[in-house]
């Protein structure tokens, strides 16, 4: 478990809840407190000169919200869109962003000892964006440091001069 993961557990005193979702055959999880809502995929308004994983923007009750397809970003699963395509709306430090995933599974509670550090290896997802690997029964959850990932330069979601330096 790394420093970021510790922070999350410190705040909640023991077990902490995560929302799990699938990308292809892999199971991922994010801190439930970062999730604002889950909704279906609405048609987006594309924006010129942005990377392919930024699908565009949608109107979320009056706010203009960017939509990121993590399946394209991590090259997992098929990036097709139908009525069961799911968008997880995240609220990260006051900024709202929607991420497209293959499907949302459930909410699980993990205690600190269930989280193991992620091994260093070449991966689509840089280990600096991982909180660790969570084990629950025979499932392995990849815990994403979602705030760090979404504010990174890779995601091109915020202006260069606001990007968190690592």
């Amino acid at each position, binding site marked *: 478990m790394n420093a970021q993961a510790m922070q999350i557990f410190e705040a909640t005193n023991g077990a902490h809840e995560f929302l799990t979702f699938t990308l292809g055959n892999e199971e991922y999880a994010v801190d439930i407190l970062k999730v604002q809502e889950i909704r279906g995929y609405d048609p*987006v308004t594309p*924006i*010129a000169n942005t990377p392919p994983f930024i699908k*565009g*923007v949608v109107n979320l009750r*009056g706010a*203009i919200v960017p939509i990121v397809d993590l399946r394209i970003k991590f090259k997992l699963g098929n990036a097709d869109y139908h009525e069961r395509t799911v968008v997880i709306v995240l609220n990260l430090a006051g900024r709202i*962003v929607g991420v497209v995933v293959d499907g949302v599974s459930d909410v699980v509670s993990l205690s600190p000892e269930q989280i193991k550090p992620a091994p260093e290896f070449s991966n689509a997802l840089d280990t600096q964006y991982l909180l660790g690997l969570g084990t629950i029964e025979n499932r392995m959850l990849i815990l994403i440091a979602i705030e760090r990932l979404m504010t990174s330069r890779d995601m091109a979601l*915020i202006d260069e001069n606001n990007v968190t330096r690592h």
Partner: protein
Amino acid sequence: MTIDLSVFHAVFFEEVTEHLAEIEQLIINLNIEAPNPDTLNAIFRAAHSIKGGSGTFGFNDMTELTHILESVLDRLRNSEILLTHEMIDVFLSAADVINDQLNAHRNNQIIENNNAKAIIARLQKFMEELPNELLPTVPINNTTDQANFAYQWRLNFVPAAINEAAGINSLLDEWGQRGILNIKHRPNPSDPDQIWEIHFFTNETSEDLREDLTFYVDSQHIQIEQIAHEESSIINNDNNSFGFFDNAPGAPQTSLANFASQAANTNNISPAITKIDEAYGFFTNAPGAPAEVNVKKTDEAINQVNNRKSEGSSIRVSVEKVDQIMNLVGELVIAQSMLAQVASQIDPNWTARMQAGLDQLARNTRNLQESVMSIRMMPISVVFSRFPRLVRDLAAKLEKRVELITVGEGTELDKGLTEKLIDPLTHLVRNSLDHGIELPATRVKLGKEPVGHIIISASHQSGNVVIEVSDDGAGLNRELIIAKARERGFTVNEGMSDQEVWQFIFSPGFSTAEQVTDVSGRGVGMDVVRRNIQEMGGTIDITSMPGIGSTFTVRLPLTLAILDGLSVAVGNQIFIISLSYIMESMRPLAKDIRTISSKGQVVQVRGEYLPVLALYEVLGITPTVSTPEEGILVLLEAENRRVALFVDQLVGQHQVVIKSLESNFRRVDGISGATIMGDGRVALILDVGYLVRRTARASSSNF
């Protein structure tokens, strides 16, 4: 129990800021000769409140300064001492220092403020001044004496040659025997740009005075006029004074009526005074008003009454909360229009009652939206109130004499706009003062009143806010501007309309000032003014007549949150272009489209070649049409550049609510914002400034 006072600091700071603004405004409007006791009381009260508050919170530096300020004001309102120009200067500086101290406390810094010490010393001096009775006779005590004379004249004349100075002095001595002579300004004989200003209470007629003076002064350079007072509905000048003012109380005051009558006399229908009529009518309709003299003051007095009325029934709300309500109402409007759209597709028989309900919903929603918008509206007086001080300081610096008149201060516009308006308007006012208004001596030589006028007016016109900055100065110099434009390599010809010529002054780096001053002349400014105004979705126009004056007219949308836009389609996407940038839209003929070095395309529009910018290329979209003659060219102008934007087709004209793209995303080149269309989808608003800059860059890199 201890109370943590610091929680009240924010409220106190806010209050002090308001009191300071009030003090500054009141001081600026004080009439030196006859200060209104109510105004003095109001200043005293404001200073007293600051003192009380700062004492409670232990801000001793502020207490110390306001205490002495208050003491001087107390003597003033008890008529123990007389108001002087110097005092006004010191009061204003004191207000500045208090503001500095306030900011220091706000940031929790304790600074040793030497200015404060200097101001306290100067204020202390006033405390030691002799009481009123011992001072020589001054106008305010002379009211009864003045009433014994038939006329009050204001005389302005250019100083006589030095060898005649003695003659003037002896003449003035002689006049002193024949009435009450009040020398307002005695020029320095070595400086030909200064002029005499004298107020004379006498039984002599203006002809007699003029005759006396012509021994020493060229008669063309003499101006004699009746000083108007009371409600001043009677316009008097040299030829038609009938002694109306036999028992006129009060002291001499400058009058707008004089300005109006003068303009009328010289048959100048000046653009600068178009607003006067209206203002003047207002003025005469207020018979109960005290002997306030110019429109500005009457207007303000009424504003103050209004303010007082509304004070009790207003609450402070944070801007965030209001914005939140605005957003929700915006959503409601969209939801309502979606419902209406769905309902229109259902069988009408079945939905008659529902339709009625929906209509009602539509009406209520619209009303709700309007009233929520109005919460953000603020009177433009928040912007205008900065100008009296600015004009006063700048006029003193430039040795010009200027009267500032503000009209329509109650006009409301969006809070966001008022903040953004300050810079461009300040620039226009400075510009008028520096380039427009002539030096007093020049003005008298030209037969104008030595005091120049700057009028700032605001009004609502068909859903827009119109703000005008006018002066009765020299006007723009067509020949000079054309010469400069040619020098800078613009295409000019003598046949250009004035409107086209005036547009040159908005070019970056353009200045006709012969010498660079620290006020203006560097040529930065007007281009920035225009860019700022365009960014607010507004436009700026100029009218000007040589020798009579100039008027700068700024037109703005009522609110920043709404934009008048044209929607255009490219491929399957819709984009919005602000109407303020659009000159026209057209479908070109194939023969009007040419290529340059087989790359860049240009279109010929009435003899001018404009670069063609294909929106689908900029945004990487697959268009439905690929040649301009099958689509539409929208001619855009921004930052003095013109381009023809090639789009597939025009969709319609809308008022759209502007949403920020950056609050959840980042800046995108070419896009200035987003909006939500009636069907709930997002449409992007094009950044026209970026598009024209891009075209300019592309064309310069091609060569």
